[in-house]
């Protein structure tokens, strides 16, 4: 079929669907982000320790098992076959670029052949070759505790044809495999050293990881910080011709309280902050010492609402549609968005994704319609429901807003704020009426097939456990179809069904913002995960 080298990609063809992009209104990458420009060798200053801040804690250093795949330290220690590179900051277009894979081709609908980079060594000296890559992919697919095995479930066989050729065959035609391999929250397979795993065992490796990345593991103080040091033999070179990284090391600190992490940024004891809370974006931008990297394509949806379809009142589609029409997105943006949020109408999809079509019904805020629908459903005096949410910020504040919002239009809402595991349990046991969480539709922009686990019957990330066999069939088909136009039609149908049957509600889209101090140069972002391999500290 077609042969792709490292810097070409089919993702480009989606340009046409971004014409009416809503993200144009969000201020994009600040002028201070020189991420795209190549630095002059003279300007680079080697050395120094970078301290970054994260707001969630790592459970393990084994990247296949870790449920927190998107945390920066993994990218520091491990490389994957492919990665994302921002092609157009204005539209959020990304292209897929090889890291450990130099090139790839797809001879037929089910087969992918990767040519691997030669001469890559792991931190323990062992070689990276197709055998090791094969072992990694199968481990990711088969390990009982693999966190994202469902993304590789379609892989039938992985073959190491020679030392640097990897052949992956799927059970059925698979179109979205490359984006899946690149996306952190999908099938991105961080390559780990088999020799190290053999030597240390599962539990040993989980605390002493060995990869091939720009940084070597130094120390992990659980729930406090992870310290990485420079890998002098890294296989990518910097602008000065010497191997990356420029830094001597990087420490990622876990700071539980976002307010305090902000203070740390200002005080300089943190130089990079992975995610800035929405309410603080404006004050960070106003600080002359700080800069931001805005990622509207990696936005977060405040208020991704789910309904229990097995019990009244939401087993009635009319009530669900009433609830969706009762979502006051403008009001939500004003109250919770702090100037950077936009209304979001299409659950699980985002502009830029295949299937996204703004001519589909938006289910806009319409109190009159809410009343009419409720009346038609047999609730002329309104309906009383419980809304279950995880007890943390900002979910609590969002919940308080929604509680009033719905109560004002006749859906009397009682907010039930539960601790995280109790909430997850309630979802699994279908012990709820309405619930919500913060969603990330960015996967749809990468490829809607990534959203599969969130929308199919029994999907692992389908929190509200709604089910529509029609949608399952369509998602299945979309994953197999090769023709982009046909795929767009298929996913568009999925979205149409979601809107018509009101399976999900959605509120506002808040772009992800990473902040960094101005002395940090060369910070890149791999879709939404900070990448410091080419970063250096200005004097």
């Amino acid at each position, binding site marked *: 079929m077609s042969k792709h080298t490292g810097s070409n990609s089919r993702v480009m063809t989606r340009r046409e669907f971004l014409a009416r992009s809503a993200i144009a209104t969000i201020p994009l990458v600040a002028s201070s982000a020189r991420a795209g420009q190549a630095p002059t060798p003279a300007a680079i200053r080697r050395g120094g320790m970078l301290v970054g801040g994260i707001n969630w804690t790592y459970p393990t250093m084994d990247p296949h098992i870790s449920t927190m795949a998107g945390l920066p330290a993994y990218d520091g220690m491990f490389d994957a076959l492919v990665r994302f590179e921002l092609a157009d900051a204005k539209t959020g277009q990304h292209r897929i670029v090889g890291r450990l894979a130099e090139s790839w081709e797809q001879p037929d609908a089910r087969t992918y052949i990767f040519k691997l980079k030669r001469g890559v060594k792991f931190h323990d000296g062992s070689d990276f070759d197709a055998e090791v890559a094969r072992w990694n992919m199968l481990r990711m697919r088969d390990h009982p505790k693999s966190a994202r095995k469902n993304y590789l479930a379609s892989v039938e066989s992985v073959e190491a044809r020679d030392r640097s050729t990897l052949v992956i065959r799927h059970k059925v035609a698979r179109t979205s495999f490359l984006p899946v391999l690149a996306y952190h929250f999908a099938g991105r397979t961080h390559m780990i050293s088999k020799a190290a795993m053999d030597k240390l065992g599962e539990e040993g490796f989980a605390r002493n990881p060995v990869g091939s990345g720009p940084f070597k593991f130094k120390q992990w103080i659980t729930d406090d910080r992870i310290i990485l040091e420079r890998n002098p033999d890294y296989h990518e070179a910097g602008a000065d011709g010497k191997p990356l990284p420029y830094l001597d090391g990087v420490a990622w600190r876990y700071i539980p309280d976002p307010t305090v992490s902000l203070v740390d940024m200002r005080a300089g004891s943190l130089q990079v902050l992975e995610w800035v809370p929405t309410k603080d974006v404006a004050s960070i931008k106003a600080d002359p010492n700080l800069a931001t990297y805005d990622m509207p394509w990696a936005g977060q949806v405040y208020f991704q609402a789910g309904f229990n379809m097995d019990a009244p009142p939401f087993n009635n589609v009319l009530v669900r549609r009433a609830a969706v029409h009762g979502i006051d997105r403008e009001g939500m943006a004003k109250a919770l968005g702090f100037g950077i949020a936009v209304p979001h109408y299409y659950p699980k999809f985002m502009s830029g994704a295949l299937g996204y079509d703004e001519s589909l019904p938006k289910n806009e805020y319409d109190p009159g319609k809410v009343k009419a629908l409720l009346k038609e459903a047999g609730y002329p005096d309104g309906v009383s429901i419980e809304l279950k949410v995880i007890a943390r910020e900002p979910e609590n*504040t969002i919940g308080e807003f929604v509680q009033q919002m719905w109560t004002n239009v006749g859906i009397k809402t009682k907010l039930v704020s539960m601790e995280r595991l109790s909430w997850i349990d309630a979802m699994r046991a279908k012990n709820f009426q309405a619930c919500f969480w913060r969603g990330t539709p960015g996967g749809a922009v990468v490829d809607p097939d990534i959203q599969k686990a969130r929308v199919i019957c029994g999907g692992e990330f389908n929190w509200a456990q709604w089910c529509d066999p029609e949608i399952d069939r369509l998602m299945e088909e979309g994953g197999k179809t090769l023709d982009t136009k046909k795929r767009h039609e298929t996913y568009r149908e999925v979205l149409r069904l979601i809107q018509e049957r009101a399976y999900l509600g959605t509120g506002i889209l808040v772009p992800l913002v990473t902040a960094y101090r101005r002395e940090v140069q060369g910070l890149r972002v791999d879709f939404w995960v900070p990448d410091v391999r080419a970063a250096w500290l200005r004097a």
Partner: protein
Amino acid sequence: MPQASMSVRVMPGRRFRSGRFPAFFFRLIRIRGSLFGVAVLTLVLLLAATANVISPYDPNKTIGSIMQTPGTQHWLGTDHLGRDELSRLLYGARVAVLAGAVSVGLAVLLGVIIGLMAGYWGGWVDDVLMRIVDALWAFPTLVLALAIAASLGPGLSNAMVAIGIVFTPAFARLVRAQALSVREREFASAARALGAGPLRMMLCHIWPNVLGPIIVQASLMIPQAIIVEASLSFLGLGIEPPNPSWGSMLRQAYQYIERAAWLSLFPGGAIFVTVLGLNLLGDGLRVALDVRLRQRGVS
């Protein structure tokens, strides 16, 4: 969690007869600080009782735009969701009273029962009960409160039960100590010789002696209950949103401390004044009830 010492020595057989209360009261408020404490207590009780009458708005409803500075329409401004801060503060007083009274009330109830049984019967009853009490006492306080609240589920009532259980050991020990000391006294054996049963012993002899220290301890632990509820809110338990408690208001407000400092100032100030007042009141009660100190003319 800091707690005051409990050494109060009271003469045996003292009771609070109606005629003595006004005298006691006037003695109390002459003690430095107690007047302030009594004033604060009265004010908080008053506000809590009349919150629904004097609140200008519904505390859980968004009335104005978010984070308005204090002004004519909203005397204390609005919070991060546009709700009237003053109304929320008033209803928060209710929660403060509830949280304090119910949790400490529960602790007193459980503590008295356990303490009386342990102190009066002694022997293996005492051993078993006190070891259980000590086990609870040795358990890290906030962790225990957290664990109980997490097990019971979200909400203020569950938080209050959790705090009550955590506070029980203090009262149990207090009551037990008094019960033991009374048991040893001569008049007790005399009473028993005259045929007084356990219930009569407990009610007529132990209880009056225990009442004073309990009141003092309770007045020092009620403000702590308010603080613990705030800590539980901070950790994701405590009162269920959107209902206001001073602790949860503070917990949400401190995130906006740069933009809207008054949002932290008002609930923080309320907590501060209430805790300060109740502590001073407790100190005063301790002195007022300690006959020995009074006899020496020290306060």
